[in-house]
């Protein structure tokens, strides 16, 4: 882009070293333990630090933790680096205890459900903290790197309270909070006393621009350096413009159809479920509507996540003829009628994909009545489990561990939703959950995935991709967890 009056908003081309990021939605909250969204995480990750973190290669690294050891199956001990909060106070074991206990006990926090397996956090000394889990917990380090385990300054928080904290949040990350205009932008400035590498940017603005064409417009005119979530229809525009690049990245989010296996639904018959699966040409969906981004899968655990089964990625079972046969075998030679719920505008191109699936299903004699719901109505329906045979949803993995995803196939979790029940899966899952042997645990998870792919309580569609528009003056490598560490971006 070239310069214009709009530059006052901050663009890549001014000399000051400012980074402007445009996201499709504002951060939900400045409180890192009450946020639970990719958009919020992109800010929190740079403002707060956690005990662990995922590096650019998605390897788990110590962050605030200097050293750690596992004392027994349920007890872990961590010593902290010397770090300070933005207000100059030192990060201590007390702060860790305070932060983790907050998220472990406060049900109103959105991150709360993930931290239930932590039992106790004890301060050993100023720099040492002990965490006791409820049973063996192979995923504890993943959890401590997850959003929500951000360390908050105890003394400050208690002094100003939640209201005060939200007005001026304080963390120990490389950037400190300057301003948040809701539904507009969050502004961050570097924290000079950061314990890690010195922050690179003089200023970072994270803007919320919901309308994709506006976001792209800002990108093209140089108003922003990086724009997330560029929909396929804008790719041509971004690619053809000089000065900006389109960068494609993968995510852990897998789009899938949840199927009722409940008695009384036609889909309780495995043959019908198979027929539905065979009738959908995942590859065609990816190639047409998604314009080639996204990977057809038959599992919820995509590559890059611990426990993935490589046999189930990039496979194709599409066979309409066989699908018709299966329906006939199942006693429905004239086809079946089902109801298919999908969101609209919740995931990229969800309604288009859903409409495409409906027409694919109809080829095989499956007459799907489509119910497209706006995001909140969709969640209502999903959460109240009032959907019928099929519901299309995209599920991500916040822990980068198969345990996070595969819990859906346990009886307790599936009750009322898919009503899936399989003794073997149950046993495997429970065993893996307590299993500290990585290799064996992985095998167990892979086996679960094979069974699920066969029995189809979920019919998988594709692993979602995310596309970024990036100014050519910036180097940017997308990550599987969709996080952005500002200092990983560099100016060319």
């Amino acid at each position, binding site marked *: 882009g070239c310069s*214009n*009056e709009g530059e006052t908003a901050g663009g890549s081309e001014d000399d000051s070293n400012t980074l402007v990021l445009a996201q499709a939605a504002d951060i939900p*909250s400045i409180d890192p333990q*009450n946020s639970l969204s990719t958009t919020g995480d992109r800010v929190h990750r740079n403002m707060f630090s956690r005990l662990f973190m995922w590096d650019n290669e998605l390897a788990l690294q110590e962050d605030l933790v200097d050293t750690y050891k596992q004392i027994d199956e349920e007890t872990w001990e961590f010593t902290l680096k010397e770090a300070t909060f933005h207000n100059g106070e030192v990060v201590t074991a007390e702060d860790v205890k305070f932060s983790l206990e907050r998220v472990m006990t406060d049900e109103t926090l959105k991150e709360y459900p993930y931290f239930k397996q932590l039992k106790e956090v004890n301060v050993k000394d100023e720099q040492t903290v002990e965490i006791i889990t409820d049973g063996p917990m192979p995923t504890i380090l993943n959890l401590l790197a997850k959003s929500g385990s951000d360390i908050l300054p105890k003394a400050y928080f208690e002094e100003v309270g939640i209201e005060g904290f939200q007005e001026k949040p304080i963390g120990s990350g490389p950037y400190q909070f300057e301003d948040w205009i809701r*539904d507009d932008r969050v502004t961050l400035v570097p924290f000079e006393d950061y314990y890690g590498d010195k922050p690179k940017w003089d200023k970072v603005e994270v803007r919320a*621009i919901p309308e994709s064409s*506006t976001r792209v417009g800002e990108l093209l*005119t140089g108003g922003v350096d990086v724009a997330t979530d560029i929909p396929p229809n804008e790719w041509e525009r971004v690619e053809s413009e000089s000065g900006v690049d389109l960068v494609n990245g993968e995510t852990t989010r897998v789009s899938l159809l949840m199927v009722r296996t409940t008695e009384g639904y036609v889909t309780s018959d495995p043959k019908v479920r198979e027929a539905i699966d065979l009738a959908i040409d995942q590859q065609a969906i990816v190639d047409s509507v998604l314009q080639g981004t996204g990977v057809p899968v038959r599992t919820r655990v995509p590559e890059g996540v611990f426990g993935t089964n490589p046999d189930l990625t990039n496979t194709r079972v599409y066979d309409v003829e066989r699908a018709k046969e299966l329906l006939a075998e199942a006693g429905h030679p004239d086809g079946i009628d089902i109801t298919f719920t999908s969101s609209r505008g919740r995931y990229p191109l969800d309604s288009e994909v859903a409409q495409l699936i409906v027409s694919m299903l109809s080829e095989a004699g499956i007459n799907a009545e489509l119910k497209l719901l*706006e995001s909140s109505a969709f969640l209502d329906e999903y959460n109240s489990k009032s959907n019928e045979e099929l519901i299309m949803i995209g599920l991500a993995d916040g822990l980068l561990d198969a345990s996070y995803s595969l819990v859906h196939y346990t009886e307790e979790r599936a009750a009322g939703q898919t009503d899936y029940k399989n003794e073997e899966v149950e046993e495997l899952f429970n065993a893996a959950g307590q299993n500290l042997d990585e290799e064996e645990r992985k095998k167990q998870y892979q086996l679960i995935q094979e069974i699920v792919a066969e029995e189809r309580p979920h019919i998988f569609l594709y692993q979602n991709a995310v596309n970024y528009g990036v100014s050519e003056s910036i180097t940017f490598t997308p990550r599987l967890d969709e996080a952005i560490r500002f200092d990983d971006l560099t100016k060319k």
Partner: protein
Amino acid sequence: MKKYLVKRLLQIIPVLFIISFVVFVLVYMAGDPVALMLPEDASESDREAMRAALGLTDPFYIQYFRFVGDLIQGNFGTSFRYNQAALPLVLERLPATFELAAASMVVATLMAIPLGIYSARKQNSLVDLFITGGSVLGKAMPNFWLGILLILLFAVNIQFFPVSGRGTIVHMILPAITLGTGIAAEMTRLIRSNMLEILNQDYIRTARSKGVSSNILVYKHAFRNSLIPVVTIMGLQVSHLVSGALITESVFSWPGIGLLLVQAVNGRDMAVVQAAVFVIALLVIIVNLITDLIYRLLDPRINYS
């Protein structure tokens, strides 16, 4: 006059009361906010725990009385989403909203008055037809469509204005045009028809018989009279400008009250919805009161009794 004002202000109370009840029922009916706050992966017991913690398991009337009780103390409650008092959240949006509303009104007026008068003076001419057609077009274009088009044309292609965001006065121009066009279209038509009617009035004939020139006739004698109904329309449009701007706000990522309201409704964020509706309602009522006063100022025939 003073009594009139007091009377009008007192009438606000029952209106606000009805509004708060209707809104409460609506949002209550809309469903469970918790479902929207937790991720798809959360389990039923997680949601139950959160509901209990937020006091959402109580029966309707208890929730309502709690709400009214708080309200009387000036407390709208806490936003679920932001975990902050709701009223300041709403109030901090007001400047952005005002700014846009005022700018749109200015744009609308600047467009409508000359066009309306001109097409009335040249009734049934080609220009008149053109203006009428243009105002229909202005009315028929949905805001989002016009907004995106304006961005494409004037911000991306000829980079004359910034694409989005709030900041300097140039940031305001495209959203103001987007929002103002529809209003301008309506006003143009209204001014035109008013003008036509007024130009047929007896007192215009009187002025002509005095030897007044046609410019003075139009801009002095007729215009002031034709302005009277226009002011009413402007008052009515305020509601639209404050709450109905959300589409424009969203296209231009303008942090106004409309956007907040939609998000609050989608997130069933009761406290914010209530606070926002209250503030908007109050604004609308006050603006209508002001237009009423202006109306009375413009038209000496109306007295304050």
